[in-house]
């Protein structure tokens, strides 16, 4: 089939427009389709990835989603609102992840296989991460020791934690 506009090339873009029951069909070559512009661009956009993502983000009624996000939910570092994020599908700054944390889990569960990272850890930040994980571990042990009245063990843990905290402050 030839393009109905230039009558020269093969029609490769086929579009059917239905407006209040009235059907119009278009058969265009790629070139004429791009030149034709608007409505085809719109049709393509319907499948645009951002829209798909923001569609996911707006599935508020779906099970597993916490109740409606407060309109005022906003990142206090870059100023992006949650509303804006759902429209563009992009965060404004690294801190947004923390600001919108309450809304993020269900989204990540949908688009990713899990909600925690198990891959590479940057070398420099890695040291801090390791230390922080170790501290958390020790604090848990300390709580346990106190709860089970093992005071000697608790004192030892307390000293170790204090020492580690001083190290990271330096």
């Amino acid at each position: 089939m030839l393009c109905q506009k230039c009558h020269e090339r093969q029609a490769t873009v086929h579009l059917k427009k239905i407006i209040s029951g009235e059907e119009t069909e278009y058969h265009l070559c790629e070139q004429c389709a791009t030149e034709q512009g608007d409505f085809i661009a719109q049709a393509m956009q319907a499948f645009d990835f951002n829209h798909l993502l923001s569609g996911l983000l707006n599935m508020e009624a779906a099970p597993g989603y916490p109740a409606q996000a407060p309109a005022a939910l906003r990142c206090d570092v870059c100023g992006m609102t949650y509303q804006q994020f759902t429209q563009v599908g992009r965060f404004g700054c690294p801190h947004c992840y923390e600001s919108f944390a309450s809304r993020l889990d269900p989204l990540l569960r949908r688009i990713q296989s899990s909600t925690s990272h198990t891959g590479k850890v940057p070398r420099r930040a890695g040291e801090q991460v390791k230390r922080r994980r170790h501290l958390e571990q020790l604090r848990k042990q300390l709580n346990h020791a106190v709860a089970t009245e093992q005071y000697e063990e608790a004192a030892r843990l307390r000293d170790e934690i204090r020492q580690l905290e001083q190290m990271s402050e330096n």
Partner: protein
Amino acid sequence: MSLSDFLQQAISRWMKDGGPQDDIILSSRIRIARNLQDLPFPILQTDVHADQVIQEVQKALASSAVAKLGEFEFARCRDMSQLDRYVLVEKHLISKDLAEQVRHGALALRKDEVMSIMVNEEDHLRIQVIMPGLRLNEAWQLANAMDDALEQQMPYAFDDNLGYLTACPTNVGTGIRASVMMHLPGLVISGHINRMLSAVSQVGLTVRGLHGEGSEAAGNIFQVSNQVTLGESEEEIINNLTSVVHQLIDHERSARRLLLQQNRELLEDRVCRSFGLLAYARQMDSKETLQRLSDVRLGIDLGIIKGVSAGILQELMVMTQPAFLQKYYGQELSPGERDLRRAALVRERLRLDTEVR
């Protein structure tokens, strides 16, 4: 400039050297997304922020750790012509998004064009390595080394639990996108392709056409890549992709064998007909060119066509794109003129392989 000289200069390594399984795998690519701490992502970037990121990257590029990984050229998008930017897109060295980031975008490109660093695209940094054949591990190791070298110079946005923080939640975690460009004419001709591809999408991988998201699979070329970036390690992601790719290779090989056994005449006719058209046609649009090139490449792989270099598919699929054609002929070309010049370029290129009968 003669065509062969132009080719010498214009072709990236991934388009000319072979590699493992290069009868089916055209290229392997690793891209990792990274962002700097305490700076807004490019979507909210001011000129000052953008300059700051660019300065940090330039400083890092000058460090000895990065210097060990090769010699890089650095340029801001605004200092390159639009045509040059689009040539880079067609060579798969930068993304279209970066080419359009005229004000804030920048690029570091290794001399052999194996590695590029896109600056201020969707994320502050996108490290990309592209290699011919099936070499995901090698590509990852190189990208990983660059990542380590850059990280020594600038602190990344990283979260204990979520990993590397990226502008889009689909990249968070490892920030890695591993992809393989495959030529699968056997599966397409035999009609098994859709079944294969839907199986692939069920194991957490995505399949796209030659030009990425939303493009159709012109020339029987498909890009298979990982979809998930959070919850699996880089090695798991690469191993998973590699094992699926190996299965696709096996299926493609047996489809080709079957075609040869059962439909030899038909196949030979198709291949030689396409070769004839490429060798003599006076005008051709890019879609037909890709389809014919795919046929000829299949003919070369199956020994039906001899004396033509196998790399012709990768080479010409890039060189017959609009920006590249205009670069070669040194002038702006309307779509109609492009079809004429495209056919001329293909004829000329085929003639370079002297043994053409």
